[in-house]
């Protein structure tokens, strides 16, 4: 009985939320990039830059500076992807892979320059945690009402804002148009390149923020390899979420829940290895089972060139 209750305990829930946020932010970024028609497989690399610059900024100027530095680094880094994939029309997958490789080397190089060692930054202090008044005084609710990272509500607000931008604003409509049929959008005067760049840069900002959450709020410092492939999980979450922000939230939450579960439910009589691969099995099942119904933007991954068309 106790084990069954532990499946839904609030402590588990709080853990799931913490593990959801980095995937969610990166997946939200991926939505913007791919809605504009650019596949961004470099999310992992951008997140690595986010973790590194988040830690560096926090080390020198506090967590707010760290967050801004991570977002700025994400934007700059994704601009490289934009340059390669949109302007120079390199295969978007290759350009993304380049980004991932570059990030590993660059973070190591810069860490040696700044801190004299290869793989780890000094420890840092994170944001002051939030507590919900009233609720935090109820002992049963304490795990979810106290000690909340301010980035968690921020991430949730960004999902709502992201959805609103995509559905309700001119920019959102144009971005989606560019991802579905760039030629048609171009014909009616939408600047395809500008829209695609904006989509990629937004994805960079959000993936950078995802990295900042990892290093500032969870790791309290940068450690080489701390992203642990979450950028790729985010891509899966975005696809499972059917290229919509709210869908990405649901998918990320599912992964976050199973991740937390694999770390917490040791009391269950299940082999340890099985629990460990559970989040990945869920990813595969989800991709194999649900994604058949998902529909990517029609021009996703196809570079656009003005003169070769029409």
């Amino acid at each position, binding site marked *: 009985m106790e084990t069954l209750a532990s499946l839904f305990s609030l402590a588990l829930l709080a853990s799931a939320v913490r593990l959801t946020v980095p995937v969610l932010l990166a997946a939200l970024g991926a939505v913007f990039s791919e809605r504009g028609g650019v596949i961004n497989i470099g999310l992992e690399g951008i997140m690595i830059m986010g973790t590194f610059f988040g830690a560096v900024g926090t080390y020198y100027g506090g967590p707010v500076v760290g967050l801004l530095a991570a977002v700025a680094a994400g934007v700059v880094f994704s601009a490289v992807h934009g340059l390669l994939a949109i302007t120079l*029309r390199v295969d978007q997958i290759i350009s993304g892979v*380049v980004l991932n490789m570059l990030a590993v*080397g660059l973070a190591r190089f810069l860490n040696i320059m700044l801190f004299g060692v290869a793989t780890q930054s000094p420890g840092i202090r994170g944001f002051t945690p939030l507590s919900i008044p009233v609720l935090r005084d109820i002992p049963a609710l304490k795990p979810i009402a106290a000690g909340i990272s301010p980035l968690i509500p921020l991430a949730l607000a960004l999902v709502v804002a992201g959805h609103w931008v995509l559905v309700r604003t001119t920019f959102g409509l144009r971005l989606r148009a560019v991802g579905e049929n760039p030629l048609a959008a171009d014909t009616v005067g939408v600047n395809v390149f500008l829209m695609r760049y904006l989509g990629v840069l937004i994805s960079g900002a959000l993936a950078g923020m995802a990295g900042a959450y990892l290093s500032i709020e969870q790791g*309290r410092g940068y450690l080489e*390899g*701390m992203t642990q492939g979450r950028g790729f999980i985010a891509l899966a979450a975005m696809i499972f979420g059917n290229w919509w922000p709210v869908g990405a939230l649901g998918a990320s939450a599912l992964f976050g829940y199973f991740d937390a579960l694999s770390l917490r439910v040791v009391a269950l009589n299940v082999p*340890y290895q099985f629990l*460990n691969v559970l989040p990945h099995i869920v990813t595969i099942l989800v991709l194999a089972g649900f994604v058949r119904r998902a529909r990517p933007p029609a021009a996703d991954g196809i570079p656009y060139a003005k003169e070769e068309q029409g």
Partner: protein
Amino acid sequence: MKRYRRLGTLVALGLAALLVLSGCRPAAEAPPPAGEAPAPKLRVGIVYDVGGRGDLSFNDMAYAGLERAQREFGDRIETRDLEPAAGGENREELLRLLASEGYDLIFGIGFLFTDSIERVAKEFPNVKFGLVDGFIADLGPQSNVVCLLFNEHEGSFLVGAAAALKSKTGKVGFVGGMRIPLIEKFEAGYIAGAKYVNPAIEVFSDYAGTTGEAFRDPVKGRELALSHYDRGADIIYHASGGTGIGVFEAAVEKNKLAIGVDADQSLTVKPDQRAHILTSMMKRVDVSVYETIKALVEQRFEGGYRNFGLADDGVGYAENQYNRDTIADIKPELERLKQKIVAGEIKVPSSRKELEAFLETLPTR
């Protein structure tokens, strides 16, 4: 526009090539070749484990040993340390690089070097190798490889006892990095120590994963530690490299205690974490590196196996200015246990199987 496309591919390829090349470059510049000095200096090289310098534990300990040797035999040796690429795949290449440059003694730090050193040592029979944490079968005094092994289970037994003596809740935790026999050795010793002191104690035990990545996942370390603390544990021992940073963070957050590993981690963590580190299980990689270099300098290097245990202070628990008062009350008991282990009265289990047999010998209360 076609032209642009090709240009783009070139740029991408160029960046990739740059990365590959920069990955291959050794971390330190080659020292100038020894001159026409009457007695040529002995040359000693180290290749680090994944994580490299600055991990505040394992690799930094190895470096400390090298540094000490350099200080003491400064005029007779010259040293060089190299860091493998992020994934560690070029470690064998780096060993071979040092060997072909005529180094006299080369260390591989970490069990991941086992296969590489076995191969490279055969190719360079005149070069001597020191392998920390790895085991190569059938070595003898004439071999050019010495395996430097530690009785981690003995040190872990003592910190396990310390945890059980200090725990107010009767529950303690263990967070391991990668699930391999080496780390299970820490776990077995720890559980044995805790249960020896208090057979009724409950020990939660978890691993961060099954790959090398599990040693650098502070996010997972933090979540695992939080889950132990949430279930009532008040002291957690980690044997998980960089993942342990997350364990310390969780201890700060929950205002509980943690136990460090390899180095005296009270000295290396952030100031706000210090108060939360009860002690650390010291594994004196520095001593093993230093002793091996010393043997070489004094021309009494022997191949085979060297075990560093409690008896020769190769492992132990850390005492420093931060935890001296906290552990003062349990120190006599820990010293008593240490003597018993050294005298062979307590045979500390070094694997899960041995642990089960060990637990059966304990009185049940």
